[in-house]
């Protein structure tokens, strides 16, 4: 499968601040890649580099096989971009904006445009500056979906929207996902879980991992053990190890089924070990907590 998006050692520095630190990942064709991370993790910076709005300090990104720094002009005929941080053509109406953008795209699908306008119940004659935030986002979606882009990049598209609008947008994304690779950033994990196929986690400018969502969900388990003594050394894959009433609890980040149970029995002896699947939200909270704990420990050591 061809990779639609590739990042190779991307770094971005703003003065003394390292916003991105050697970020590498790949997004295969047809994937819905969710980039998650806390506020300030570097998600928007990464997307701006991918869209050639900003330039990397180091490394490079390939967008549809083309260096992102050369992405311009007709290169955007196959790329859609919607961001909460982007201005719209506020001087015109929704219909005026669509009329204006249409000739730029040879593959603009008027039927799809009409369907999306009806689906989103967009008022074509109203000026964009008079629309609510949700309506503006819908208008931006229509203007970026109607030409059936090969790649759709969405920067926090759902934040601040009411649940009804979110559902509408997610539904349209699901429909679109059949022929489009979607790369979106969000910190709304519950919604991502419902339609993302791949996920990448960005923390303090570093991509901690990037993999298919199924694989991620499969390798994370909340583990509990009843009885046993606190081990002297804790395996690297065990995150947030803590004592609880009558035993211990940790997050296993490399769950391998029976082998993980064997590993636990080796540590605790003949104890009762249980592994429970985790929702995406819990996985990221665990990762974030583990990261903070690690940094605190490094700080103490320093």
């Amino acid at each position, binding site marked *: 499968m061809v990779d639609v998006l590739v990042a190779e050692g991307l770094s971005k520095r703003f003065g003394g601040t390292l916003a991105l630190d050697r970020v590498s990942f790949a997004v295969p064709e047809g994937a819905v890649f969710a980039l998650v991370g806390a506020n300030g993790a570097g998600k928007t910076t990464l997307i701006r580099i991918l869209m050639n709005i900003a330039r990397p300090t180091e490394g490079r990104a390939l967008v549809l096989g083309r260096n992102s720094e050369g992405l311009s002009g007709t290169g*955007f005929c196959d790329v859609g971009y919607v961001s909460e941080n*982007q201005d719209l053509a506020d*001087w015109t109406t929704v219909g005026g904006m669509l009329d*204006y*953008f249409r000739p730029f795209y040879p593959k603009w699908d008027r039927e799809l445009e009409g369907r999306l306008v009806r689906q989103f119940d967009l008022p074509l004659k109203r000026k964009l500056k008079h629309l609510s935030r949700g309506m503006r986002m819908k208008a931006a979606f229509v203007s970026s979906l109607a030409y059936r882009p090969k790649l759709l990049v969405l920067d926090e598209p759902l934040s601040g929207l009411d649940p009804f609008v979110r559902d509408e947008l997610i539904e349209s994304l699901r429909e679109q996902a059949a022929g489009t690779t979607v790369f979106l950033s969000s910190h709304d994990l519950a919604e991502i879980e419902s339609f993302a196929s791949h996920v990448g986690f960005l923390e303090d400018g570093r991509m901690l991992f990037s993999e298919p969502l199924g694989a991620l969900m499969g390798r994370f388990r909340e583990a509990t053990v009843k009885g046993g003594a606190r081990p002297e050394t804790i395996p690297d894959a065990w995150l947030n190890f803590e004592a609880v009433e009558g035993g211990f609890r940790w997050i296993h980040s490399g769950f391998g089924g029976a082998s993980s149970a064997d590993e636990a029995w080796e540590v605790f002896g003949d104890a009762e070990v249980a592994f429970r699947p985790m929702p995406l939200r819990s996985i990221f909270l665990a990762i974030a907590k583990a990261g903070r704990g690690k940094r605190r420990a490094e700080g103490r050591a320093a």
Partner: protein
Amino acid sequence: MKQILHIFSKDARRFWPEILISLVILAAFVRVYPVNWLPQDAFHSRGFLQYASQLQILANVLTGLAPASWWLLIARVIHAEVLVGERQFWVTRPYEWPKLMAAKGLFLGVFLYAPFVAAQCVLLGEGGFRPWEYVPGILFNLLLLTGILVLPLVALAVVTSTLVRMTLTILGIAAGLGVIVYLASLSETSGVSAPYGDRYSVPATLVIGGSAIVLMYARRRVWFARLMLLSLPGIIGVVAAYVPNGAMVETAYPLATGMAAVADMPIQFAWHEGQEDHTAVTEDSRSDGVEVRIPLEATGVMAGEAVMLDDVMAVAEDGHGVARELPWRAVYSHYYLPGDWLTSVDLKMKRTEYEALKGKVLTLKLGLAMTEAKAEAVTRIALPAHDFEVPGFGNCAGAAGSNALMTNLGCWTAMHGPPLTYVKANLANAPCGEKRDVPDAGSLGGADAEGMHATAWVGSLENDPAEFGMTSVWSTQVSLSEGSYYGTKYLCPGTVVSFTRFGLVRRLRTVVAIPEFRIPEVMKGVGE
């Protein structure tokens, strides 16, 4: 091309109010500006003679408002696809930068340049000129408009994100220029009349400003482009610093050296003993310095020629070999025709320099930069009552319609001021219509009867196709002076007026040495 027209039509629809404002202002300017040269009878026929003075004020206001409306137009159309920032919608759309830039150029071409050209043509027509005869001048004015106004405004627009920021930037630049002009005015070396003095500012603006614009559209390198634009005044300043006024004068006016060259001088300036008594020193209260007036004799101008003294400098050496140099500065209205002339040059010096040199026996070496011109055409016209054309010069108001003073001729020329012209007429002692004696103006340099012989020099030897301006028609007052301040004189219909047009022969420089020169005491009560 399709994308260019698409963006252009979007901008035209969006900015119709700004377009309308600029067109209305330009139309009003074209309608009103001829008040600056049209004779009163023309206004009378238009029915607003009584508002002539108000219209002149309005014309001046509109002359400033038209560029201001263009500034608004440029800012709005460039900022429609703003190049600064990371939030603009269009950067992630299939805009091709050459086409975007071309669309903006097309917009300015249609709504700024085309109306400007039309305005130039209409004004030429109003002035009685045929526009098609001045196509090179109109194109040259467009080039100057681009280099002096449009391109700097576009360059500022591409490196700013909003009209407010652009306005603040312009105000900052204006304040900076004000400081520079003020500092320059303090310099005693300022103000030479050397031709070709500043031939690099407009080309430098075109090259650097144009590069910054292309760079912004192609790569949106904001700070790099800003640095380029900031470097522009620096480059111009550095060039000015390294090409000082003295060097400009000495380049433009080669020194005549050698026996043959000196003998071939178009004029001889000489200092004669006994002229010390005519040397005068007056206080210059504005600069806390003094002006030393040095009388000279000027002779040797050949028939059919004229010589203009343009710039003067001096080196004063005392007996101990210490030299003080007074830098080049312009002198004005020093025209010499065939004959013997008593003239003078004024040297400005600081009070401290004056005190240091006063009373000493000096060798004063005067550097004189001059222009030799040759009469190319003479037109004699019996002053008609109606407007009349002077071939190769321009058009002038007839005696009946002249809105000038009684001894002035109101004239107007196309694309620039008139060529260097010597105008002669004989003025009447009595009001027109009464019994009077009005002799013919006679030939160049000759003496005329009755002591009413009046002359005037107008125009310059600059030969650019156009002078930069909103207008394509330039008004000139030919102020005839007959050297007598007694009694009112009249320029009446039927008076023969001669216009002698001069062309450039060469520019050159000479040195007049005045041995054993003493600077006298300051004349009290003069020059205050």
